[in-house]
């Protein structure tokens, strides 16, 4: 049993963690609204009046979910994530985060090209020159559609400037 528990993240735990998370968000919303005034001024209800009650409802809803998962739980014993699934989700998610950080530093075009090239090489098992060609093609297409077709600029970094593209 101990072996199994190591591998699983149970759904019940996740359910409670999420309920606590939303309850926390509710508290933050109540606090934020309280700071901007939840009362009544000569202009009518103050800015925090409406969101304050929204926050209260979030806390109430979260508490109900929390209590239900503690005492009347229908999905008892269900698994939220197995190690195997977690690995494939993380295998997708971590490169995604890396892509975002690279894009923030070097611009979205460079980020996209590197991301697609990397994902194809490491996850898809393609040879480097196929991956690089595909990455260039997709990035080029992005440039045509966004920059030229719809004339909306994407985030650019130092490399485009150095190449003198914009």
């Amino acid at each position, binding site marked *: 049993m101990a072996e199994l528990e190591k591998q699983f993240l149970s759904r019940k735990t996740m359910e409670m963690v999420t309920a606590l998370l939303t309850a926390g968000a509710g508290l933050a919303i109540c606090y*934020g*609204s309280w700071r901007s005034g939840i009362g009544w001024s000569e202009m009518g209800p103050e*800015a925090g009046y409406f969101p304050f009650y929204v926050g209260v409802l979030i806390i109430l809803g979260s508490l109900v979910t929390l209590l239900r998962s503690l005492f009347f739980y229908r999905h008892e014993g269900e698994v939220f994530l197995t190690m195997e699934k977690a690995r494939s989700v993380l295998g*997708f998610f971590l490169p995604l985060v890396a892509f975002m950080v690279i894009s923030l530093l070097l611009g979205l075009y460079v980020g996209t090209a590197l991301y697609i090239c990397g994902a194809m090489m490491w996850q898809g098992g393609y040879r480097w020159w196929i991956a690089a060609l*595909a990455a260039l093609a997709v990035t080029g297409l992005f440039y045509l559609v966004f920059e030229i077709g719809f004339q909306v600029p994407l985030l650019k970094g130092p490399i485009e400037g150095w190449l003198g593209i914009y």
Partner: protein
Amino acid sequence: MGNFGYLMDGFATVLTAHHLMIMMIGVMLGILVGVLPGLGAPNGVSLLLPLTFTMEPISAIILLSCMYWGALFGGSTTSILFNIPGEPSSVATTFDGYPMAKNGQATRALTLAFMSAGIGALAGVVMITLLSGWVARFALQFSSPEFFAVYFLAFGSFIGMSDNAPAKTLVTMMLGFAFATVGMDTISGSLRLTFGIPDLIKGISFLVAVMGLFGIGELLLTTEEGLRFDGIKARVRPIDVLKTLKEMPRYGWAILRSTLIGIWMGITPAGPTAASFMSYGLARRFAKDKSKFGKGDPRGIVSPETADHSAGTSALLPMLALGVPGSATAAVMMGGLMIWGLTPGPMLFIDRPDFVWGLIASMYLGNVVAVLLVLATVPLYASILRVPFSIVGPVIVAIIFSGAYQVANSTFDMWLVLGFGILGYLFKTLDYPIAPLVLAMVLGDKAEDAFRQSMLMSNGSLTIFWSNPLVSGIMALGVLMLIWPLIAKAAGLRGLRRHTAGHQAKV
């Protein structure tokens, strides 16, 4: 000039080469987002929206609404050929569509699906043509308390009618309202819920939320479920299409019933997903011979498809006439209208009849174009799904982040997309509904304004929501919807509520 005259004017606006071209592009892009995993109709429309800011509003709405039709069709295609619903609303189509295609009748299954979908959608548009003017005229007598009551009704029925636990629906909905209030308060001008973060002063865009929740969230879920696309080779032969067309009249009764279900569920915020499940459930319940259901019964394709599309179309009626969208995609489109400076609601029919009726006319044409295009291009899209996920996934991610950046040229929005993506993944796996969050984000400001203005009118007394028969009636209906699960339980009707809930896949 009656509705008919306006409609003819609308056709005159729409029937230009430029607009027909836009329609085709919209439908093609729509099928694409409907087919690809992680890109659904709400997300696709959100991604396209920033690109339309420079277009004429009428052209832009034609593009976006046609994308919506296309996405609905694309979702059915993958349901039938790959057993993967491209859209949550086409889950019910997999039950019989995939088995029929597997039996070597892929063309028959696709034709049945597209034709019944087209009929359902057209029925929805006819309903909009007939009713929208009337509903809008009725809504002209609304003032702030009535509008708040309508919002209350919409959100109350979400909580009452949804499959998900009411407390979870409440939480996601209220989170949506809270996200909508972040930033500058429009009435007092003070900052709210920014917690000292300068990037939050401009507020949180609903587009960014949709891209994260629907886009990244769904992609993460897709990777978890593993990706093996065992597709069925589909070559659409014209002769098979014609043969299938000849058998369509046999399902007249099923189509009629499903249309009515779809229209009802589309106008009320239950939405296309619930409509298709309910329609499938009723088709099976009323069938004399149930043995073929799940093994490729044509009625099991026709019923959910008709209901899905008539609900999808009908969802635009409350959006146009009342300013209350009936589905997540309609909510995104409504947000778009507001960005273009058009306020959906009864006044739109008076101020911009050309726009409203142009849109309605485009819905007729768009759906016809969609049926023809989707039949012609099925093999093309089926081959796109065969591209490995290690290529498609990153491309979709890159498109989503580019789209998020384009909303306001802000890098902070990219972080928000990431956050919303994790939230969406968490919510989806734990059965929190996401549509109410999107609706609340789009409607948040309007609902709050209506509420605060009502409070001003009554000096802070909640009795204003019960002060005349009209507002009391709407509020009473809202309360009824809200506590509907309790009533149904008490009356022992629980079985009727959603007998197919067990089939609900995680999409």
